[in-house]
C-alpha cells in the first residue's frame, strides 16, 4: 500500500512542480515526465507485487467531509486493473517527452500537471474502497483528461470535441452520483465494507441501480449509444494521452462496473442480456464506422468502441451465467479480463504509432500518408505488430482473449437447451463478421499508410521519430508478441483474478491454464516456420547478384502517378455498398464531373457518427427549442414581473389556506 501512496505523492508533487517551473520546457518535461514515469513505475511495482502474492492490502483514514473516508483496498481485481494504468502511464510519459518537444505551449508544465493528475486519479479510482472517494477521483480523472483533450484549444474541432467529451462524461458522472447516493441510502454508508448490505436489495431497486451504474460507467467506457465522445476526443488529444485514455481510462469504467456488479444481488437474466446486446451493437457499429474513417486516430477510436463492445459482450455472458453455469461464467470472465489487458497493450501501441506517424508527416489523414514503411521503418514495424494483435491474428496476443470469448459462447451454445442456444451461437457468427471487418480495417490502415508511394509531397519528407518515442512503442510491441508467444504471462494474473471472483470454477480455470501451452507453442511453431519459409525464399539466391528493382507494373498504364494509388475510401467502398445500410455509409459531396473538359471539382468525404448526428444532437436541439418557448416568460416588462410576484403570493396563500 505504501508504495502506491508513494507513487501518488510522486505524481502529485511532480505535477504541481512542473508548471511552477515556468517557461522552461526542458525542466518541465524532466520534472513532469520524470515524476510521471517514476510514480507509474512505483505503482506498477505495487500492482505486480499485489498480484503476485494475491493478498489484499487496505487502509482507511477519516475525513471532515460527511460520508467520505479515505479508505483504500488493493485486492487482486484492483491490482489487475492498476497494471494497464501504470504501464501506459509510464510509457506514455516517456513518449510524451519526445512527442511534445518543440510543441510546448506558453506553460509547458501545465500538460504534465494534468497528465500526472490523470494517472494518479485513475490509480485512486481503482484503489478506492469508498464510493465518494471513488467518485471524487472519478471526476478528477474526467477533468484532467478533459484539459488534456483541449490542449490545442485554438482549433475549433478541439473545442467541439472538448464540449462533447465534457458533456458525456458529466452526464455519466451524474448518473453514477445518483446510483451511489441510492446505494449509500440503502447501505447506510459509502464504504465498500458497508455494501454487503446490498446483497439483499429488493429486485426493482437492484435493477434500477444496475441501469444507473451501467449507463454511468458505460458513458465512460464507450458503451454503444454513449460512445460518441471517443471518436471526437481521441483525435483531438495528444497521442500519448489518447493511448492512456483508450488503453487505461476506459478500463477504469469497466473496473467500476465489475466492482459494483459484485456488490449487487445475483443478477436476473436480462441484465446479462442487455449487456450482451449493447456490447454486440457496439462491436459491430464500432468496427463498421472504423472502416470508413480517413483519420487514423478516429479510426482507432472506433476500434476501441469495438473492443469495448467485445469486452462487454463477454462480461454480459459472465453476468448471465453467474450462479447458473459457473464454468461458462469463468470462461467469459477470463476472456473479458484477458482482452482488457490485451487491448490496453495493443491499443496503446497503435495510438503511439499513429502519433509517431502524425509527428513524422504532420497529418492524420490516410489519403496523405503512404510509403512510410521505407521512411519510418521502426514505427512501421510496431504498427504491423499492433495490427496483428488487434485483428487477433497469431502470433500476437490478441487471439488469446478472443479465443476465450469465442470458446465461451460456443460452450454456451452447446450447454443451453433448444432455441436458448440460438443467441450465443448467432453471436459467434457475428463475432466472426466483426473479426473479418477488423481485418479489413487494419489491412487498410497498414497497407495504405505504410505501403505504396507517398500520396502527399509532405509525406515524402517524413522522418522517423526519436528514441524517446520509439522505445515505448518497442516495449509495447514486445509485450504484444510476448503475450502471444508465451500466453502464460498474460493468463497467470487473469486466472488469479478470475479465481477470486468465480471460486467455483477453479478446476476449469486450472484446465484452461493448459491452453497457453497450445496457443503459445503453436505461435512459436508458426513464427519458426514463417522464418524458415522466408529463408527458403532467400535460399535460392537469384544468379544475378541483386534482384532488379523496377517500378510496379501499372497494368499497361505507362506513367502511373501517386494520384493513381488506391485510396482509403476506395478500399472500404465495396464493403460499404455491398452490406452496410445506407445510414452508415459515409457522406460524399461533389467530385462527380461529367463534362468533357471538367473544371475544378471539390470532393468531400466524411463519415459522421450516426448516433451523434441523428441521435443526441437532434435531441438536445429539440430540448433547447422547447426551452426557447419558455423564454418569453422573461418578457422584459416590469409590470408583468410584478404580476408574477402577485400570483405567487395568491398561490402560496391558497396553498397555506388549504393546508390549514
Amino acid at each position, binding site marked *: 500500500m505504501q508504495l502506491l501512496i508513494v507513487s501518488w505523492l510522486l505524481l502529485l508533487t511532480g505535477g504541481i512542480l512542473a508548471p511552477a517551473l515556468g517557461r522552461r520546457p526542458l525542466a518541465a518535461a524532466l520534472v513532469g515526465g520524470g515524476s510521471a514515469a517514476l510514480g507509474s513505475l512505483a505503482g506498477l511495482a505495487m500492482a505486480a507485487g499485489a498480484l503476485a502474492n494475491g493478498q489484499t492490502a487496505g487502509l482507511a483514514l477519516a475525513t471532515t467531509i460527511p460520508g467520505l473516508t479515505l479508505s483504500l483496498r488493493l485486492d487482486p481485481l484492483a491490482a489487475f486493473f492498476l497494471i494497464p494504468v501504470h504501464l501506459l502511464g509510464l510509457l506514455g510519459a516517456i513518449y510524451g517527452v519526445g512527442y511534445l518537444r518543440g510543441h510546448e505551449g506558453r506553460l509547458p508544465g501545465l500538460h504534465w500537471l494534468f497528465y500526472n493528475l490523470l494517472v494518479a486519479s485513475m490509480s485512486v479510482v481503482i484503489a478506492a474502497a469508498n464510493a465518494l472517494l471513488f467518485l471524487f477521483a472519478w471526476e478528477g480523472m474526467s477533468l484532467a483528461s478533459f484539459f488534456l483533450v483541449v490542449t490545442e484549444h485554438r482549433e475549433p474541432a478541439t473545442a467541439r470535441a472538448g464540449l462533447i467529451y465534457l458533456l458525456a462524461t458529466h452526464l455519466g458522472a451524474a448518473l453514477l452520483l445518483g446510483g451511489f447516493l441510492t446505494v449509500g441510502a440503502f447501505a447506510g454508508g459509502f464504504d465498500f465494507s458497508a455494501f454487503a448490505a446490498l446483497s439483499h436489495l429488493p429486485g426493482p431497486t437492484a435493477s434500477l441501480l444496475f441501469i444507473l451504474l451501467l449507463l454511468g460507467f458505460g458513458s465512460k467506457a464507450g458503451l454503444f449509444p454513449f460512445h460518441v465522445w471517443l471518436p471526437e476526443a481521441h483525435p483531438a488529444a495528444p497521442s500519448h494521452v489518447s493511448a492512456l485514455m483508450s488503453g487505461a481510462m476506459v478500463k477504469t469504467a469497466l473496473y467500476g462496473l465489475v466492482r459494483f456488479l459484485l456488490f449487487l444481488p445475483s443478477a436476473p437474466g436480462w441484465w446479462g442480456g442487455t449487456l450482451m446486446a449493447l456490447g454486440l451493437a457496439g462491436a459491430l457499429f464500432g468496427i463498421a464506422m472504423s472502416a470508413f474513417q480517413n483519420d487514423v486516430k478516429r479510426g482507432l477510436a472506433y476500434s476501441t468502441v469495438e473492443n469495448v463492445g467485445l469486452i462487454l459482450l463477454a462480461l454480459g455472458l459472465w453476468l448471465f451465467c453467474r450462479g447458473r453455469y459457473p464454468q461458462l461464467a469463468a470462461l467469459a470472465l477470463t476472456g473479458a479480463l484477458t482482452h482488457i489487458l490485451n487491448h490496453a497493450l495493443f491499443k496503446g501501441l497503435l495510438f503511439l504509432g499513429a502519433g509517431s506517424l502524425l509527428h513524422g508527416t504532420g497529418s492524420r489523414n490516410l489519403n496523405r500518408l503512404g510509403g512510410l514503411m521505407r521512411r519510418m521503418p521502426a514505427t512501421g514495424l510496431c504498427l504491423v505488430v499492433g495490427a496483428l494483435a488487434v485483428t487477433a491474428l497469431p502470433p500476437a496476443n490478441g487471439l488469446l482473449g478472443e479465443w476465450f470469448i469465442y470458446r465461451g459462447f460456443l460452450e454456451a451454445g452447446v450447454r443451453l437447451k433448444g432455441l436458448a442456444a440460438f443467441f450465443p451461437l448467432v453471436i459467434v457468427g457475428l463475432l466472426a463478421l466483426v473479426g473479418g471487418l477488423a481485418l479489413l480495417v487494419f489491412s487498410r490502415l497498414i497497407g495504405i499508410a505504410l505501403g505504396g508511394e507517398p500520396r502527399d509531397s509532405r509525406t515524402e519528407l517524413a522522418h522517423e521519430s526519436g528514441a524517446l518515442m520509439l522505445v515505448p512503442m518497442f516495449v509495447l510491441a514486445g509485450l504484444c508478441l510476448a503475450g502471444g508467444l508465451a500466453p502464460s504471462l498474460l493468463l497467470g494474473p487473469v486466472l488469479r483474478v478470475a479465481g477470486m471472483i468465480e471460486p467455483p470454477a477453479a478446476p476449469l480455470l486450472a484446465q484452461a491454464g493448459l491452453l497457453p501451452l497450445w496457443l503459445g507453442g503453436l505461435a512459436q511453431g508458426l513464427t519458426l516456420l514463417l522464418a524458415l519459409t522466408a529463408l527458403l525464399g532467400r535460399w535460392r539466391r537469384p544468379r544475378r547478384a541483386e534482384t532488379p528493382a523496377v517500378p510496379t507494373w501499372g497494368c499497361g498504364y505507362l506513367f502511373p502517378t501517386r494520384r493513381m494509388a488506391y485510396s482509403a475510401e476506395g478500399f472500404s467502398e465495396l464493403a460499404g455498398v455491398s452490406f452496410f445500410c445506407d445510414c452508415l455509409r459515409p457522406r460524399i459531396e461533389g467530385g462527380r464531373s461529367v463534362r468533357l473538359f471538367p473544371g475544378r471539382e471539390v470532393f468531400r468525404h466524411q463519415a459522421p457518427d450516426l448516433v451523434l448526428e441523428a441521435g443526441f444532437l437532434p435531441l438536445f436541439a429539440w430540448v433547447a427549442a422547447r426551452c426557447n418557448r419558455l*423564454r*418569453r*416568460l*422573461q*418578457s*422584459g*416588462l*416590469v*409590470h408583468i414581473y*410584478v*404580476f408574477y410576484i*402577485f400570483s405567487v403570493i395568491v398561490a402560496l396563500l391558497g396553498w397555506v389556506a388549504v393546508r390549514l
Partner: protein
Amino acid sequence: MENLANLLLLLVILLNFFILGSSRLGACIQTAALQGAMLACVPLLMHPISGHTLFLAGSALALKGVVMPWLLFRAIRQVRIRREIDPMIGYVPTLILGTVATAGAFIFSDHLPLVAAHRGSLVIPCGLATLGAGFLMMITRRKALTQALGYLIFENGIFIFGLLLTEAMPLMVEAGVLLDLLVAVFVMGIVVNQINREFSSLNVENLSLLRE
C-alpha cells in the same frame, strides 16, 4: 372616534377608486397625497394620544402628504407629461377589477381570525383593498411614474395595516421604516428622471430592452 376612523378609511377606499380611474397624473398624485394625509390622521383617532402616535401622525403627514407627492410632482414637471395614455387595460376594466379586489378584501377579512377588538373596524379590509389597488396600479399602468405611484399606494395599504400594531414597531424602527420609504421614493424619482433623459418618454415598453 372609532366610527370617524372608519369613515376616513372608507374615504381612503374611495380615493383608491379615483386613482384607479383617473388618467391625469397630476390628479392622481394629488389624490395620493390626500390619501396619505387622511391616513396620517387615522392613528390619532384610533389610539390614545402619545408621543409615539403623534410622531407617527406627524411624520406620515409630512412624508405621505407632502414630501413624496412633491417629489413625484417634481418628476412629472421635468418629464413634462400630463396623462397616462393607453394603459394595459382600459380604465373601466381596471375599476371593475378594483371593485372586485375591494370586495374580495372585505370578504377575506371577514374570514380572518381577528382579535375581538378589531372585529368592527375597517382597518384590515381597507388595508387589503389599498394593497390590491396598489398592485393593480403597478400591474396595469405602463408609465414608470404611475408605477412609482402604485408603489406609494401599496405602501399606504401596508401603513394602514400597521396602524393596528403601532406598539409592535418601536419608535426607532418606525423611524427607520419611514426613512427607508422616503429614500426609496427619492431614488425612484431620480431614476425616473434618468429614464426620461435616456428614453425621452416613460413608457415601460421602451424599458424592455433587457429580455430573453
